[in-house]
């Protein structure tokens, strides 16, 4: 596979695209990275963000340094604002919800994903260690109703991240439902990855050129809509 450099949509727009998939009333957990940006696009909507540190209906991020309460952070260690209906609980309650299947949607970042819905996100062997940071990722994917990935389509070094075979250790196998990248929107189906949307100006062939597994192109293929 040649190392093509395609121009896609920015991270904020990946987040915006995903926000359209979230239904009012949903309980949602957002992982570190691109997923966290989704919170900017759902303010004011009736969507309940859960933070595995132990909070539900998390408010927006603090923007004014003066307003920081060091006892009030989200699971990415960012200070947040309490809103009416924000509640706090301990870690056991948090993972009771998570593993118990109460998250309608979990959105995670990823290092690699394949066409069977396996993905790797917890350890990058290039760090020179054989261990990494699992955090709550494996609990979240074990319990989620639906699991989305939000990621760059291609790694910084030009290597594909949508691969035939994971070379990094998997976070979970067969659980991913949808993949949102800067270049495309793909659905994991029993037959493989269904390419549903491409970034403005790109073709299915362009996306295939930086994707290892053979893509099934949707007959309704369209541009990513925001």
């Amino acid at each position: 596979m040649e190392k093509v450099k395609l121009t896609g949509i920015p991270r904020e727009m990946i987040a915006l695209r995903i926000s359209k998939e979230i239904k009012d009333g949903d309980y949602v957990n957002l992982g570190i990275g691109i997923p966290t940006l989704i919170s900017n696009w759902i303010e004011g909507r009736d969507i309940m963000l859960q933070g595995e540190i132990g909070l539900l209906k998390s408010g927006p991020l603090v923007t004014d340094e003066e307003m920081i309460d060091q006892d009030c952070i989200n699971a990415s260690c960012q200070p947040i604002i309490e809103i009416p209906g924000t509640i706090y609980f301990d870690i056991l309650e948090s993972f009771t919800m998570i593993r118990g299947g109460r998250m309608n949607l979990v959105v995670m970042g990823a290092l690699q994903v394949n066409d069977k819905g396996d993905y790797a996100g917890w350890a990058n062997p290039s760090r020179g260690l054989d261990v990494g940071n699992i955090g709550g990722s494996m609990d979240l994917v074990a319990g989620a109703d639906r699991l989305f990935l939000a990621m760059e389509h291609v790694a910084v070094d030009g290597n594909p991240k949508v691969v035939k075979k994971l070379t990094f250790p998997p976070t979970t196998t067969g659980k991913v439902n949808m993949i949102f990248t800067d270049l495309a929107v793909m659905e994991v189906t029993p037959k493989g990855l269904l390419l549903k949307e491409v970034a403005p100006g790109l073709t299915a062939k362009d996306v295939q050129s930086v994707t290892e597994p053979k893509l099934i192109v949707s007959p309704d293929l369209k541009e990513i809509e925001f």
Partner: protein
Amino acid sequence: MDKVYQKIEEAIADVNDGAVIAIGGFFACGVPRLLLQALIDKKTKNLTLTCGCGPMVGATEELRALVKNGQLKKLIDSYGLARSASKGRQDPFEQAVKAGTIELEVVPMGTLAERYRAAAAGVAAVYLPTGAGSIVEKSVVSSIVANRTPKETRVFNGKTYILEYALKPDFAFVHAHTADKEGNLRYSKTARNFNPVMASAAKATIVEAENIVEPGEIDPDCIHTPGIYVKRVVQVPRIKVRVGID
């Protein structure tokens, strides 16, 4: 029963070399920093710290001191390494893990919570779905890569579960917002996190509290940790913490 100690060094006097200590906190939030500092001052060696989610990533200075003093034998955590690889390259702890002088065992966050709870509740072991189909089906310890111990798995209703065992620390170091003199505790907002489950799991729980009040002054319907789990309480000032992780 009055559980208040005046001096923090007296509250941890029986924490000896080789102790297994649970450390509350989630990244920078709710970490028992002054108990950690007292442990550094005490120079206790050969320690195993069992965490929940990155309290040592949040308490960078304390971790550096523990590594520098050679006090750490092992860290058990779900998020024990700096977030970015570049920060990690300058981190003495990560270098010690690489060199094999400190062991790092990585456990999913919810599994850790569950293992503390099992210890607290007299449960020997539980079947959890977390990590099935991943490396978590074996123990993930930095120093035994070639020989990772496989865990028992079992299928219930067509789904694979891993048998996870109770994890009972000798001590828990806990940071509370308010304690009464009998050891009943309240935490503030997300500073609660792992503190309650560790308090109930450990053989001896030692609490640093920003406020100490008389029994009955905390709303009896809103006790987060019943005093029965608490051995000693010491009052500490509220210190300003930089929020954020590297």
